[in-house]
């Protein structure tokens, strides 16, 4: 019999109470139980980064964490980023630079990029590429994504 467990967490600023099967991973919980389909699921083994979300302020793989392990945690998905202005500059830069095509990688890519920008990372292409090395993009070739991140850092440095 599948064991279930109740969890309480904060998702995009809202308190959530749920009972989850213990084998369910966090990104499936967000997508299937909460309808937050902005976080994507690609490989389910930690390689592609499409499921990258913020847990307690740090980007993690949503496919490599169980939903039960998020008990007590604060989770922010790409929908949550849209509720605030935290990622506005990055989103605008992604649009301006054509840093997305199909958009499958974009929610995870934005989450990774945001942690880089917010931690004060330099506009250094090698460092940016290292930081986003765990996020695959099959469309853009990364150049435009790195451009967009550099743009945001450049603007913040000036203002």
């Amino acid at each position, binding site marked *: 019999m599948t064991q279930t467990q109740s969890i309480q967490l904060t998702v995009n600023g809202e308190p959530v109470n749920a009972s989850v099967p213990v084998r369910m991973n966090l990104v499936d919980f967000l997508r299937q139980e909460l309808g937050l389909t902005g976080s994507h699921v690609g490989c389910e*083994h930690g390689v592609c980064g499409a499921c990258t979300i913020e847990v307690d302020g740090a980007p993690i793989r949503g496919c490599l964490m169980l939903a039960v392990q998020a008990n007590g945690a604060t989770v922010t998905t790409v929908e949550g980023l849209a509720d605030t202005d935290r990622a506005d500059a990055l989103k605008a830069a992604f649009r301006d630079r054509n840093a997305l095509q199909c958009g499958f990688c974009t929610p995870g890519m934005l989450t990774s990029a945001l942690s880089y920008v917010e931690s004060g990372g330099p506009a250094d292409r090698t460092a940016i590429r290292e930081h986003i090395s*765990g996020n695959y993009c099959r469309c853009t070739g990364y150049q435009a994504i790195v451009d967009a991140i550099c743009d945001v850092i450049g603007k913040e440095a000036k203002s």
Partner: protein
Amino acid sequence: MKAPDFRYERPESLSAALALLADEANGAQPLAGGQSLMPMLNFRVAAPEMLVDLSGVAELRGISDSGDSIRIGAMTRYRDLAEWSDLEAKLPLVALALPHIAHHAIRNRGTIGGSISLADPAAEMPALMMALDAEITLTSADGERTVPASEFFLGFYETAREENELVTSVRVPAATSGQRSAFYELAPRHGDYAMAGVAMVADAASPITNLRAAFFGIAGQPIRLSVLEAALNGKAPDDEAAITVATAAFDEVDFIDDLKASAATRRHLAGVVLKRALAEL
């Protein structure tokens, strides 16, 4: 795929975790950061009856500095190590290697204890433990024992740990004054597991003194080669003749031969990483 079904326990003390592991009827497996175990579950190559999540065991987390050695709790994440303000001064080799271990999001959850227990042949942490002469503490419901890193890693995903034991901490000697460290790995992409890598420390760089070089990604477990180290001690790090003599020691290595790289390629790459690391020593 999705993980198979299992029971889930999250004990809040070490003794409770050990009791769950001690009862064979539980079919229990520890869950640390899940950055290797979750993929294994999703691939269905692991199917434990019970997962014992160690994240609630406070005793397993944290770094304590006793001057000449550093004790690192098993559940200390790569991220916690990177954020420790004394890392560069006390464990410079670890500071050099950390950015090469997986990716940012994975380092936010992966733990040192998980990496050491898994003993992936291409993982960095086991090689660091070998180069630094670390000691690994194992604890079961019956008691505690300490195993030197050189006796802990036995082969492909094989260690001296018994199933009812947890890796609870590692003790790593702090860098002595003047000690040199170098690290070099070759991976298909940044953050991927290495095809060949080496982590080394020496008491002095020129001439090389008391070299300890642990290779990873080339054989079933991280290895130090005494013949190679002896050939380099007393020489300058750019002494081509000495490096040629040293790399003859690769004759004794049973190189991994797989889809990522053939044994011959790995042997060649082991020489490349050695030379590049020596240049940084």
